[in-house]
């Protein structure tokens, strides 16, 4: 049993005191930002990236991963108690979770969310451990043409799964790819799109882009709307769900876990998509469809299990292929690069401690999260009473110090402000920033692989269709695009994201 010895190695790494501490820091931070509406994991991880410079790679990645799945736990608390998604992936938890709270069943709702998340976290940790190694082995055989096609597939999938208009999402990807090319061209040494600014020679830092597009833009948009938050904290009451509750939530959690684990692996997938899909499924298969929207426990259990499973399995493409499936994973790639690790299939063989340590830490982190979120729920509720007018200057201070410290140069803050404006405009024009960030990360990689593939094929673009794996990826991309453009499905997709718009 190779997997057992690998997992043993992983737990050995993850259980070292320092890594345990890092894991704890990560999940506490994750819960914190998950609970606070208006602060997302993308902005937080971007904010903390400069700090991870001083940590060892394993500890840094364990902490950052903890923030992402920790945020899924915290987000549900806010959704249930305040009817606000603390995290975008807990939008659907608002529907039934808040209704349960209004009927005095806040405790069982919170417990259901935590139990579902923990179960999903355990299973999806196993999924990662089982599926990542064979995938990495296949990926080791990839040449430049396969990589290029895979990135095309990843980007297409990201646009398909983005909410709103497909054309706009593709345009955002292209814009991101272009912005990623700013700086010195590796092949020719020519400085591209730098406008004579020497700071741009190394390209635009993606931390700066992410903070501007997500962090700054989010604050600005939030401030334009009036603050209206009604905290439902009167009494959480008894936490333990009843026997009947357990009977109803168990199948929902199982379905949510399966769905989330599968959807998380897809490029473009992750927590958000998984929770939406799980809610739709629960509503379809439930024996009590009339209860949905009025406090059905399945409506909490399914999506909460799914978003946690999806958050964790979205690490699979990152760890095995070096390709980010969503914006958070794009930042993780950045974190690996900061640490001098080239993301890709070789990570598993060359750095087994990092690979398995991270996987093991996910399960440990989930255990910590259950403890953090159930007995200590009172602390998080208190946090909800902190008004946004105190919160956002605090976030701004952290963001500005973080960005400034990247190179001790005000120029980075200037670029962040530029992307803040762009992010604000994009938000107003219903253009999603997430596909852009993916494009931004993949831009240089795609150009590099395109060049190599074309050089190897002596300029014949058909090479992408002659190699079987590459052809499969491209065919899949085309099929995805065609299918999603069909009118019948298009309306379905818009329906699925309708709830997302109100956030």
């Amino acid at each position, binding site marked *: 049993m190779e997997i057992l010895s690998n997992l043993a190695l992983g737990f050995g790494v993850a259980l070292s005191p320092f890594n345990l501490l890092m894991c704890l820091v990560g999940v506490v931070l994750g819960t914190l930002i998950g609970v606070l509406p208006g602060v997302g994991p993308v902005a937080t991880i971007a904010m903390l990236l400069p*700090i991870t410079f*001083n940590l060892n790679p394993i500890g840094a990645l364990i902490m950052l991963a903890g923030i992402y799945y920790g945020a899924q736990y915290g987000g549900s608390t806010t959704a249930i108690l305040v009817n606000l998604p603390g995290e975008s992936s807990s939008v659907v938890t608002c529907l039934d979770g808040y209704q349960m709270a209004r009927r005095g069943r806040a405790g069982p709702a919170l417990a259901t969310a935590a139990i579902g998340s923990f179960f999903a976290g355990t299973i999806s940790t196993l999924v990662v451990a089982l599926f990542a190694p064979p995938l990495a082995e296949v990926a080791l055989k990839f040449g430049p043409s396969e990589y290029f096609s895979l990135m095309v597939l990843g980007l297409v999938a990201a646009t398909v799964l983005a909410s709103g*208009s497909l*054309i*706009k999402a*593709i*345009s955002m990807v*292209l*814009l991101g790819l*272009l912005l990623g*090319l700013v700086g010195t*061209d590796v*092949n*020719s040494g*020519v400085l*591209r*799109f730098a406008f004579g600014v020497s700071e741009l020679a190394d390209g635009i830092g993606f931390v700066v882009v992410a903070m501007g597009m997500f962090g*700054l833009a989010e*604050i*600005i948009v939030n*401030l*334009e709307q*009036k*603050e209206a938050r009604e905290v439902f904290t009167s009494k959480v009451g008894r936490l333990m769900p009843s026997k009947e509750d357990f009977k109803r939530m168990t199948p929902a959690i199982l379905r949510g876990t399966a769905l989330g684990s599968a959807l998380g692996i897809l490029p473009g997938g992750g927590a958000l998509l998984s929770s939406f899909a799980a809610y739709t499924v629960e509503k379809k298969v439930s024996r009590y469809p009339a209860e949905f929207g009025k406090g059905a426990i399945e409506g909490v259990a399914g999506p909460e299990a799914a978003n946690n499973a999806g958050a964790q399995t979205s690490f699979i493409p990152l760890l095995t292929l070096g390709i980010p499936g969503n914006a958070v994973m794009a930042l993780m790639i950045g974190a690996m690069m900061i640490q001098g690790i080239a993301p890709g299939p070789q990570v598993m063989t060359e750095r087994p401690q990092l690979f398995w340590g991270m996987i093991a830490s996910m399960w440990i982190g989930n255990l910590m999260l259950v403890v953090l979120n159930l007995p200590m729920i009172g602390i998080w509720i208190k946090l909800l009473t902190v008004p*946004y*007018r*105190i919160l*956002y*200057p*605090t976030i*701004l*201070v952290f*963001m*500005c*110090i973080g*960005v*400034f*410290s990247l190179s001790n140069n*005000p120029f*980075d*803050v*200037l670029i*962040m*402000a530029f992307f*803040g*404006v762009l992010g*604000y*405009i*994009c938000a*107003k*024009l*219903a*253009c999603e920033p997430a596909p852009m960030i993916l494009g931004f990360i993949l831009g240089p990689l*795609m150009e590099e692989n*395109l*060049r190599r593939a074309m*050089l190897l094929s*002596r*300029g014949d*673009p058909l090479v992408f269709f002659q190699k079987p794996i590459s052809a499969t990826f491209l065919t899949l991309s085309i099929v995805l695009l065609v299918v999603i453009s069909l009118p019948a499905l298009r309306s379905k997709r818009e329906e699925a994201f309708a709830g997302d718009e109100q956030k």
Partner: protein
Amino acid sequence: MQIKNEKDFWAGLMFMGFGLAAVTIAVGPPAFLVAAWKSMGWGNLQYGYQMGTAVRMGPAYFPTMLGGLLAFLGFIVFLRGFFSELPPETMKANLSFGILDFVVGVALFAGLGYASKVMFKSGDYGMLAASVILAVLSFLFRPKTKPLILILACGMVFAYLLKPLGLVLATILLVFVAALGGHEYKTKEVAIVAVVLSIFSVVVFVYGLTLPFQIWPAAFY
């Protein structure tokens, strides 16, 4: 022609702008413009990057492809702005500034940045001055843009004054400017937040993470 979907209209224009700009910069401006530029005695217009061939792609190849595609898609989005069947009131962009305000802002940054580069050999003063002027303008004449402009300005003020003023004062300034961008402004509360945050950032970032920031104004040392 009536604009039916403002969001698509402006988004299309934006994508077209980025796409065409990328292509123009990569390929270089058209020959007649270069000739005209030279005949005016303004010197040589920098002429793009090398295109290369499909086998050996030059630095212009990939950006030209991307830019062209982006401009094309942008055009489609732009056209869709005129043929939307959705109710027009939901398709309002609701941007807090007009196109003229935008031009003024860009001109302010470009103009002052260039001027300060010529005068002081550094664009920093110009950027700081432009942010402050824009913040004042927004405060006086465009209260709707306050969240946008003041949130951006607070970062700029912090970044450009961190070295001369030190971390404590820069943080306090940041918090005050940021608070002006919100709905409610209570001087006492903001002052408390500012002081607490400046102490916190000194402890965490200077003592804890040993970032090389000065704590007090440079004149004190």
